[in-house]
């Protein structure tokens, strides 16, 4: 059945398969990209953990004196290993290198640190242990950069650059494979000195005999100091996954839109197929086939379509995955964790899943037309010339169903998220599409009624004929228009959402980023913990022309089981020079009045943890649990985990940490910031400090650049959905023309020229394009409201000010109209080729 007998049929089948393929391909590509984006993080974690089965971690590290206490407390069969886990940046290439500091004398039980060429000489081994600027480098990195035993490598570590000596090359096994080979090991003593972490550890790794695991865990949970946790190493992957969950879910949800558009197409294909074969069905029925057999026949056709589309989709998905991964991992690296993507891996499970999605989508969309096929009576087989029996349109029923769906959509939008996932937001979006599907035939009829005269006036008799032709089969044409409208709506809604978001962020950045210069350590990347030393802060403060410095320290912490950021800055400086936008409209000076006991939280923090102004929150600190009064909630778009900000003096006292992550520098009035910047570079460079010093305007631009990069994948997904819609339009027009060949034949017999026929078909395409655009735009605005105020708010927790990107939507609307007309070109040619006698003789 699939092939059909005519070129048109075959082409239609191919188009349907292509649409399913694109829909499935996009879903698969996003899934693969989502999985690989932090794949290296997962693999690296596995490699780096080695045989560790329990790790003790804390927000700002662990006092190393805990180690002997643990050794005394725990069973002697439990092995303990001190770990510093940090990153440095290769000064020459800017590559981030993960550096693990371990007790190299003892660590063999934990990790495989086999060196190239067996062992190094005694002298090298000794130097590796005692020279604080020594390291072992992964084979992969060493080969890439032609480094060998004894080579020097300049590294940016925190805010300094120093030369380190390669004392051995690690074979590409175990941890050396981590971070794609951007990996080095130092002795714990050297690492503590290099990273300014004397007395501290990032982790204590444990190897616990399996039989003693639960006993050890319970022993630890009762006795670890506040803020420390004992968890299996894999839980760090879970934390990263938790952090990425909202981002990934929404991306996955967005990737299904193409398939939804594709589903309209399959519905259309099958529906047309049913109409076309009424005679065949009638014959089969009169020969004794049951309704069930007919149903199975059409569903099998759909399933075959889905299967073929799914198979092609696997190929498409694999091909698109590279691009998707690039976009996804760009965002992940910018906003979440530093991780090079793992190679894309296509396993049988994921392929089966993609095929399943294709088949199920095809099955579901074919169900309605297939059921309709079972209604064909055997007697119809005898009526030659049976043509589409236009389903009578029950306008009132359609309108009522549409209104119900619309009301349900509104109701779903008001429901809270499930976990952190805006489940009902997506339900609401789907219901909106359902509502419009019901409204569409009515919309079509009304529009054509209204346009009947104008069409005659502007497009002549051909235009009017086109309009009437469309109005004569509202059900079929609605499906066609809906697939276009859905694509348009999706594009419009995402464009409105992203545009509004961008506008909001731009305003936010200009209002809150007030400092003239922003400093960060040269080795600081997202997900890395490079810090600014207290000495460097003093140096900046004492630079002429600097009026004030606000050192901001950001720590990744766990707040009630979820990743969050604990920030600290000088409230007094913030009040005098900086700004925060509080949700209740108060100025910082009214909110930041009580630094010793108060905290302020970002909007995502407040939303995810249901924190209100005036409430108390409790933080784990190295000095024990500490309660803060929440003085306010401020708008923040820098991360969706949520940030708690306390005063720097309180932070320093509780965490015994006087470093900073970034510095906001305010230049005295009348002083040129550019000159201060040059002076800072020179003064700090002389002392071996390496900083990135960004002027205000550059940072504002950088914020928007990051924003655009984040949404690049969203734009890409939209493009694919529109491509699917274009396929859908071509497909549907083709079906429509084939369907209407009788009318067209009659028109030919009645004397219409080929040119006139072409004009009629193109007018029809333009009308469908116009209608699809109109409905899509309407639906898009509604969807964007759901996206902005439900889905985004619930997933990420930020307030977006609605703004309408009029120019963009006008231009894209015109473009879509052109696509629709272009999609009508082929059917127009087909129509023009009809030989009237042949067409009529079928009747």
């Amino acid at each position: 059945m699939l092939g059909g007998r005519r070129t048109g049929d075959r082409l239609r089948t191919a188009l349907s398969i292509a649409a399913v393929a694109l829909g499935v391909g996009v879903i698969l590509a996003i899934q693969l990209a989502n999985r690989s984006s932090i794949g290296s993080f997962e693999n690296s974690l596995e490699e780096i953990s080695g045989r560790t089965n329990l790790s003790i971690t804390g927000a700002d590290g662990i006092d190393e004196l805990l180690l002997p206490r643990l050794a005394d407390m725990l069973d002697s069969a439990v092995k303990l290993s001190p770990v510093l886990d940090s990153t440095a940046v290769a000064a020459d290439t800017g590559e981030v290198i993960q550096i693990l500091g371990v007790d190299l004398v003892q660590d063999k039980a934990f990790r495989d640190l086999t060196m190239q060429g067996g062992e190094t000489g005694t002298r090298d081994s000794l130097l590796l242990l005692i020279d604080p600027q020594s390291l072992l480098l992964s084979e992969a990195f060493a080969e890439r950069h032609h480094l060998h035993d004894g080579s020097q490598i300049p590294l940016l570590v925190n805010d300094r650059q120093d030369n380190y000596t390669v004392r051995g090359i690690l074979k590409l096994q175990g941890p050396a494979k981590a971070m794609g080979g951007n990996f080095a090991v130092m002795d714990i003593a050297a690492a503590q000195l290099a990273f300014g972490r004397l007395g501290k550890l990032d982790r204590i790794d444990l190897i616990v005999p399996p039989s003693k695991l639960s006993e050890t865990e319970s022993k630890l949970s009762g006795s670890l100091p506040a803020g420390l946790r004992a968890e299996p190493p894999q839980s760090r992957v879970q934390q990263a996954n938790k952090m990425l969950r909202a981002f990934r879910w929404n991306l996955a949800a967005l990737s299904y839109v193409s398939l939804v558009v594709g589903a309209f197409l399959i519905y259309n294909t099958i529906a047309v197929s049913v109409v076309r074969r009424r005679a065949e069905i009638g014959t089969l029925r009169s020969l004794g086939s049951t309704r069930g057999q007919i149903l199975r026949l059409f569903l099998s056709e759909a399933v075959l379509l889905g299967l073929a589309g799914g198979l092609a989709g696997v190929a498409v998905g694999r091909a698109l995955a590279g691009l998707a991964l690039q976009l996804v991992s760009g965002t992940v690296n910018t906003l979440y964790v530093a991780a090079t993507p793992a190679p894309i891996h296509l396993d049988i499970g994921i392929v089966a899943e993609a095929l399943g999605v294709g088949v199920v989508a095809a099955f579901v969309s074919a169900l309605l037309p297939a059921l309709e096929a079972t209604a064909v009576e055997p007697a119809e087989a005898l009526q030659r010339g049976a043509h589409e029996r236009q389903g009578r349109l029950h306008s009132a029923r359609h309108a009522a169903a549409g209104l119900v769906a619309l009301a349900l959509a509104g109701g779903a939008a008001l429901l809270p998220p499930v976990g952190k996932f805006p489940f009902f937001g997506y339900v609401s979006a789907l219901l909106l599409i359902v509502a419009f599907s019901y409204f569409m035939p009515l919309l079509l009829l009304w529009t054509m009624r209204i346009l009947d005269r104008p069409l005659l006036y502007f497009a002549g008799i051909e235009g009017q004929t086109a309009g009437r032709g469309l109005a004569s089969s509202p059900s079929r044409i609605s499906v066609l228009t809906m697939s276009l409208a859905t694509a348009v709506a999706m594009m419009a809604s995402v464009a409105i959402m992203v545009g509004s978001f961008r506008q909001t962020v731009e305003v936010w950045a200009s209002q809150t980023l007030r400092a003239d210069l922003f400093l960060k350590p040269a080795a600081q990347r997202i997900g890395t913990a490079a810090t600014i030393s207290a000495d460097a802060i003093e140096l900046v403060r004492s630079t002429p022309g600097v009026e004030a410095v606000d050192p901001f320290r950001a720590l990744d912490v766990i707040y009630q089981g979820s990743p969050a950021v604990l920030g600290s800055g000088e409230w007094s400086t913030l009040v005098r020079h900086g700004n925060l936008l509080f949700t209740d409209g108060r100025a910082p000076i009214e909110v930041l009045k009580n630094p010793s006991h108060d905290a302020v939280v970002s909007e995502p923090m407040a939303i995810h943890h249901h924190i209100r102004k005036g409430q108390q929150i409790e933080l784990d600190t190295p000095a024990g649990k500490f309660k803060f009064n929440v003085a306010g909630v401020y708008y923040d778009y820098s991360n969706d985990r949520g940030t708690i900000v306390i005063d720097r003096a309180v932070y320093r006292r509780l965490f015994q940490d006087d470093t900073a992550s970034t510095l906001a520098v305010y230049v005295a009035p009348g002083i040129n910031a550019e000159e201060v910047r040059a002076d800072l570079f020179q003064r700090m460079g002389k002392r071996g400090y390496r900083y990135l010093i960004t002027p205000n305007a550059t940072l504002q631009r950088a914020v928007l650049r990051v924003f655009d990069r984040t949404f690049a994948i969203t734009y890409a997904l939209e493009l694919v959905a529109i491509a699917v819609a274009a396929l859908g339009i071509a497909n549907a027009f083709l079906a429509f023309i084939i369907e209407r060949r009788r009318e067209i034949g009659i028109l030919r017999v009645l004397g219409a020229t080929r040119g006139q026929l072409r004009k009629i078909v193109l007018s029809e395409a333009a009308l469908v394009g116009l209608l699809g655009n109109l409905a899509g735009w309407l639906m898009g605005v509604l969807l964007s409201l759901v996206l902005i105020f439900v889905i985004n708010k619930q997933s990420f927790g930020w307030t977006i000010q609605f703004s309408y990107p009029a120019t963009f939507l006008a231009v894209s609307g015109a473009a879509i109209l052109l696509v629709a007309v272009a999609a009508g070109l082929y059917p127009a040619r087909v129509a023009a080729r009809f030989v009237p006698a042949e067409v009529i003789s079928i009747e």
Partner: protein
Amino acid sequence: MGAAGIAAYLTTTFAVSVALLLAGDTPPRTRGQFCQATPGYRFSFPRDHFEHRCFRTEWWYFTGNLTSNDGRRFGFELTFFRQAVDNPYQNPSRWRIDDLYLAHFAVSDLQSGKFFYTERLNRAGIELAGADHSRGRIWNGDWSAEIRGTGLDESWSVDASDGGYKIHLVMRPEKAPVLHAESGLSRKSAGAGNASYYYSLTRLRTSGSLVVNGTAYEVTGLSWMDHEFFTHSMAPNQSGWDWVSLQMDDGTEWMLYRFRRADGSRDPFSSGTFVDRNGKATHLRASDFEMQPLETWRSPHSGANYPVAWRIVVPRLSFQAEIRTSLPDQELVSAVTSGLTYWEGSIVVRATQHGSSTSGRGYLEMTGYAGPISPMLNPK
């Protein structure tokens, strides 16, 4: 004398002697300057049981022969080594390495003929290893020898475990520490300072428990403790040594060692000590005794040929003995320290002294048979 040539071969940097040695205490080490063993040192216990970080190398050596309630015989070895590292770098980290601590633990199941050994390497780090007088403890991880009580009440609690093997022993010295050679100064080769400070606890009455391959035994027996510290000792032409400790049933003990030279000639720095029933020590020079190999055993692990049976003659004290072992394979092949391969095992001795026959048990140590001993500090 203690095991393992390890450290002796390590001396690549030559230290300046700063030995203005005070009784019972050695000065802390200043960078690049190690103390040397020279005459005039006065031992003071229990202080001198613990570490002397001014010297480059130091070891504590517990060996013994034990018998279970049901008559099963075992040997054990628990050795702690400290090797100083010349570290010129500034680094205030607590993990800074100035000494490396190595330890060996071996159990010989003489009945079933099974030999088990394991080892560990640590830095001092944060209480990871050390030999601290104030804590009365010599330890490496959770292996330890801890002193309890003083004077007549003094005892040592010695503990080690690994997998299915474990010792938990209490040792009471029946004799005062025996200072070897010249008041504890044991010359190893020609030249001032090429010597060690060396004493032993030669008769430690031992009881406790021993776990062998998962099976626990209550045991009693005799142990021996050697403690030696030095900066320079052997000369390049000394290729290894054979050392033996004997604990005789008549209440006497013997310690004898001979250096082997690369050219096979006799080494004048071989030495020994006889301890009578009352603990009085007699120093034996190289010319006072003979040690002759009787049988050799070829190690399947290292290919080395070890003389596992010896005839010992000390004409001056009318002493003749034959030592043998029921378990030839008591060879330790170190994994963390490449090239450190030696034989250290339980032996039985049959002897005559002044015409009357006697017997006893002891430990035999042979080094340098599996090729030259390469440096210890070679963590893989």
